[in-house]
């Protein structure tokens, strides 16, 4: 077995040759910066890794270098575009030529970084954080807290050395109205790897004095190179959102809004703005007090005024009212006087008339009575005369009838007319049958009497001959005369 033996340098040169021919052009590589170091000469050394969702630790690793002359150009461009410091943990798209040095090994010579990729990635991560906070229902919690009207007791989370902090404190404590603010600094790193933990630690300390403080201020000193990455982190955002005191941030950049800003009660751009906000709020309260005071005084004055008017009005209407009532009473009394006069006079006049009536009625009745009585006397007189004469007339008439009857009855008067009366043995004969032949009868005439004998008798019934008794008598008599 023949073995070719090369030296390491020969080998490395051969690898160098293979890589040079195999990867002649620069390539765009996606990687995450796991370490970054800037050399004193201005070169930038990076360690790049690729992480997998499934596996622990990186799945690929490579070193990279940005030469000082490139880095001087690249760094400001990247940082101003992304508003991110080029730092570990950042995902980047780099343009690199693969180089292999026989002594230093494999290295990527970075000639360009695409800020657009990193920005997209940051935005993605921010969106992810927000979605999570929302899902957990905490995203609005701090915002929904009520900011006290006077945020006077202030817990400040800031880096102690930051220039922004000093500005903030100066502005707050030297406010023109002289309002008192109580501030307490809770130091924390505001950038870099430890920022997140120290800030959370500061929040935890403040939490112990929850009752004491009105508000938590999270501020960061100025500087355009601000690294906002930690303020987009889920853990910090979660702490802020859930914190029981309102959190006001002054960490913002001109254009970007971090997740911390979004979940905080109030987000302002700068510490100065925060100080101004707090002073304004107290000042607004102060003005509200003044306004309330003047409203109270106006209200009271208006009540007093309207009560005065009411009393004035009562006073004004009172006297005419009383006078009116008294006048009405007077009038009604006067009316009573008039009524009395007219009614009394009317009554008396009525009585006069009644008396006069009764008098004339009396006279009339008396005279009527006399007339009646006189009429009665006259009537009685007339009646007496009439009755008396009637009486005598009646009596005379009766006598006349009697006389006439008597005259008619007289037998002498009948005999005068030619009638006669037949007697037999002294008795008047009425029936021929009581007589028998040969008997003697006497006949009385108007003048003198005749005696004769019966030859024969006939005709028994008086009914045989029509006519009264007289006629019968007459017949008998005639028969006898024959």
């Amino acid at each position, binding site marked *: 077995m023949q073995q070719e033996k090369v030296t390491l340098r020969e080998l490395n040169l051969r690898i160098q040759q293979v890589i040079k021919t195999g990867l002649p052009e620069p390539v765009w590589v996606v990687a995450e910066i796991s370490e970054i170091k800037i050399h004193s000469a201005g070169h930038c050394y990076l360690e790049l890794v690729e992480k997998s969702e499934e596996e622990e630790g990186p799945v690929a690793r490579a070193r990279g270098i940005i030469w000082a002359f490139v880095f001087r150009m690249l760094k400001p461009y990247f940082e101003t575009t992304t508003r991110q410091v080029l730092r570990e943990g950042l995902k980047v798209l780099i343009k690199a030529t693969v180089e292999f040095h026989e002594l230093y090994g494999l290295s990527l010579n970075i000639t360009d970084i695409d800020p657009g990729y990193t920005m997209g990635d940051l935005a993605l991560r921010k969106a992810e954080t927000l979605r999570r906070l929302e899902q957990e229902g905490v995203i609005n919690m701090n915002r929904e807290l009520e900011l006290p009207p006077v945020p006077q007791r202030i817990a400040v989370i800031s880096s102690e050395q930051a220039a922004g902090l000093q500005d903030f404190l100066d502005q707050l404590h030297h406010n023109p109205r002289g309002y008192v603010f109580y501030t307490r600094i809770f130091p924390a790193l505001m950038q870099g790897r430890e920022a997140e933990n120290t800030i959370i630690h500061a929040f935890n300390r403040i939490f112990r004095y929850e009752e004491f403080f009105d508000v938590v201020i999270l501020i960061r000193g100025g500087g355009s190179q601000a690294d906002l990455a930690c303020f987009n982190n889920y853990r910090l955002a979660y702490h802020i959102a859930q914190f029981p005191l309102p959190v006001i941030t002054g960490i913002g950049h001109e254009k970007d809004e971090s997740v911390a800003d979004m979940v905080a009660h109030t987000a302002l751009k700068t510490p100065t703005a925060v100080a101004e906000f707090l002073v304004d709020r107290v000042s607004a309260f102060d003005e509200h007090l003044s306004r309330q005071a003047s409203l109270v005084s106006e209200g009271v004055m208006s009540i007093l005024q309207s009560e005065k008017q009411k009393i004035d009005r009562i006073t004004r209407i009172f006297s005419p009212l009383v006078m009116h009532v008294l006048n009405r009473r007077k009038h009604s009394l006067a009316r009573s006087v008039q009524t009395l006069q007219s009614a009394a006079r009317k009554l008396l006049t009525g009585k006069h008339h009644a008396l006069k009536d009764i008098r004339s009625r009396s006279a009339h009745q008396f005279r009527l009575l006399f007339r009646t009585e006189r009429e009665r006397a006259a009537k009685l007189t007339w009646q007496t005369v009439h009755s008396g004469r009637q009486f005598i007339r009646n009596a005379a008439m009766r006598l006349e009838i009697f006389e006439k009857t008597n005259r008619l009855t007289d037998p002498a008067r009948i005999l005068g007319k030619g009638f006669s*009366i037949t007697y037999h043995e002294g008795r008047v004969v009425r029936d021929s049958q009581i007589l028998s032949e040969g008997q003697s009868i006497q006949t009385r005439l108007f003048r003198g009497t005749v005696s004769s004998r019966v030859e024969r008798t006939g005709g028994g019934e008086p009914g045989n001959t029509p006519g009264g008794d007289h006629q019968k008598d007459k017949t008998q008599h005639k028969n006898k005369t024959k």
Partner: protein
Amino acid sequence: MTARKEISYSEAIGEIEEILTRIENEELDVDELSLKVKRVASLIRICRDKLGKTEAEVDKILKEMDEDTE
């Protein structure tokens, strides 16, 4: 005559009426009849006299009354 004069008007009338009734009822014999007729005539004369006298008296009184009225 005196006794006869003392007969009152109504007694006279009564007797007249009685006789007339008897005549009407033919209770009387012809012989009695003419006697009674005579009696009635006499009674009527008496009555007439009385009546005449009374009338004269009453007329006088009534005339006086009438004069009173006028």
